[in-house]
């Protein structure tokens, strides 16, 4: 699929394949073409070239049928802010040809499910960012769409709200929806996606199972802070000697007073902690650190993301999360 804006190639030949009932994560920095991709696939804009079939319908030739099969939740909540949460859902139910009674029931049920019943009568403008995003998800669910597009569903949300949104997405998938998720965050992709496609400047630069991609990138880093900084090197030695399967390359970060251990599984994390307590180490904090989008890019392409500001955004987010 190709889409140009003037001389800018927003999409420069993107190929995707999503299996029914799974989540495909599309990971990429700002300006990679993620939103353009979603807008093409949801009939909002027409691509310059290429073709796509979603839920068996041709995006270009059968836009009307396609619109019955999809739901879209954008980066900017697409609800009517002047209407109450209930009125928003009722309206969409009616637009999807539900009877008055059915639209009413569906609105009530979805508000309940998304924990918005108490705020049902308040205008959406008064909702918090997370509530608005949940209302947006609820609105996308009214027609029980076969395919859901989630365009950066958690960008700009605080960690607690982000977790709520993730929880809802998991429920939708459990109910059988096929999801195309775009995100800037490796963590989000890892939490939700079955398969992952990394795009940059309108092109696919990597793709595959999340686990494969993670192996390529190197999984998580465990950061252990000994209560006594003097024990830093002893701890590194202990980890190296223990020879846990797959755990290698423990490094001491003297400046920060941390031991960094790359790990790829939860079992390794548990084993490491068991080992350290066995050896009588006192630990003041443990943290796991996922590779940021920048690190993913570095690992895949050997260069930084084209958007240098993004790196700073990621750091900010991690600080908030910590």
């Amino acid at each position, binding site marked *: *699929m*190709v889409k140009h804006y003037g001389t800018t190639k927003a999409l420069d*030949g*993107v*190929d*995707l*394949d*999503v*299996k*029914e*009932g799974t989540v*495909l994560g599309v990971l990429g920095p700002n300006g990679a073409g993620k939103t353009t*991709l979603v807008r093409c*696939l*949801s*009939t*909002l*804009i*027409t*691509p*310059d*070239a*290429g*073709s*796509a*079939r*979603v*839920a068996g319908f041709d995006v*270009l*030739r*059968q*836009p*009307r*049928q396609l*619109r*019955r099969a*999809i739901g*879209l939740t*954008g980066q*900017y909540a*697409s*609800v*009517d*802010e*002047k*209407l*109450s949460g209930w*009125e928003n859902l009722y*309206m*969409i139910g*009616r*637009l*999807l*040809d539900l009877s008055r009674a059915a639209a009413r029931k569906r609105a009530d049920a979805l508000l309940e499910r998304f924990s918005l019943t108490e705020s049902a009568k308040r*205008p959406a403008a008064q909702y918090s960012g997370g509530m608005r995003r949940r209302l947006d998800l609820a*609105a996308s669910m009214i027609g029980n769409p*076969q*395919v859901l597009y989630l365009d950066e569903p958690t960008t700009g949300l605080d960690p607690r709200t982000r977790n709520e949104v993730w929880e809802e997405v998991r429920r939708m998938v459990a109910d059988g929806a*096929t999801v*195309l998720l775009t995100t800037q965050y490796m963590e989000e992709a890892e939490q939700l996606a079955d398969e992952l496609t990394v795009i940059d400047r309108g092109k696919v630069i990597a793709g595959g199972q999340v686990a494969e991609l993670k192996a390529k990138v190197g999984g998580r880093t465990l950061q252990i802070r000994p209560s006594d900084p003097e024990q830093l090197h002893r701890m590194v030695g202990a980890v190296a000697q223990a020879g846990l399967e797959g755990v290698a390359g423990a490094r001491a970060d003297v400046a920060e007073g941390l031991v960094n251990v790359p790990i790829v599984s939860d079992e390794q994390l548990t084993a490491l902690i068991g080992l350290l307590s066995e050896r009588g180490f006192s630990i003041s904090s443990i943290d796991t650190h996922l590779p940021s989008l920048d690190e993913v890019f570095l690992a895949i392409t050997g260069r930084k993301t084209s958007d240098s500001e993004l790196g700073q955004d990621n750091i900010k987010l991690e600080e908030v999360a910590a």
Partner: protein
Amino acid sequence: MSAATITAPDKAPDQQSQVTKKVDTDEGRIGLRANARHIGALVRRNAMQIKQDPESMFDALLMPIIFTLLFVYVFGGAVGGSLGGDRDVYINYVIPGLLAMGGLNIAMSVGTGVNDDFNKGVMDRFRTMPIARSSVLIAKLIVEGGRMLVSSLILLTVAFIIGFDLKTGPLELLAAVGLALVFGASLTWIFMLLGLSMKTPQAVQGVGFLAIMPLQFGSSVFAPTGTMPGWLQTFTDYNPLSNLADAARALLNGEGAVASPTLTTLAWSVGITLVTAPLAVRKFRTKT
């Protein structure tokens, strides 16, 4: 099995144009009844917005009162005198004119409202739903028609309070209000198109004002055109607002020809709608 597949073109983009050309089949077309239901739901949306934000009704509620009182008490004596009477004569002259102008004022606010509304994310949702895209605009048109009706009723109430004398009957009154609504609806399409085409509500307001002033004052709405220079009279003869005001005046006062200005007004209304309505729908469909 794949639920979604995107394939990049293997040919160059220019060779693909035939393939990518939209070929809509009749399959999935929205039926009339479904369309009416969608429009109903969207009218409800617009009505709820007004309920949530009552200030948005100020123009429809207050403009007719302020305009009537200003024109009647500022110009009434002077113009009425030259009409060979007094202020009461002017009341009967200007009220049909203000009835004609009401639609223009409401329609202008549509431009700014549409611009604001259509830049919001909810329009993306509407555009990805299985509804006729025109239904969003038609719903807006219906609600604006309602606002015009309310505005006309307030104007007439004020008019009767300050001494307007209906020289014909309720049927003629109804016909005058109906004609004003038909013309107002066609103006609404112009301003919807304008609102969809311009970048900011301020720009819409600026352009709207520039277009409206000559139409409003270069007409028979506020004063008879007899003393105007020849070139201006030629303009007022074709000005739809002038024709609408003349038609309403003839209907309410029982003096002068009804048919000619009425037909001219209707011709304008139909012409404007035929040109601007498809353009507005097209603009809404392709707006990104």
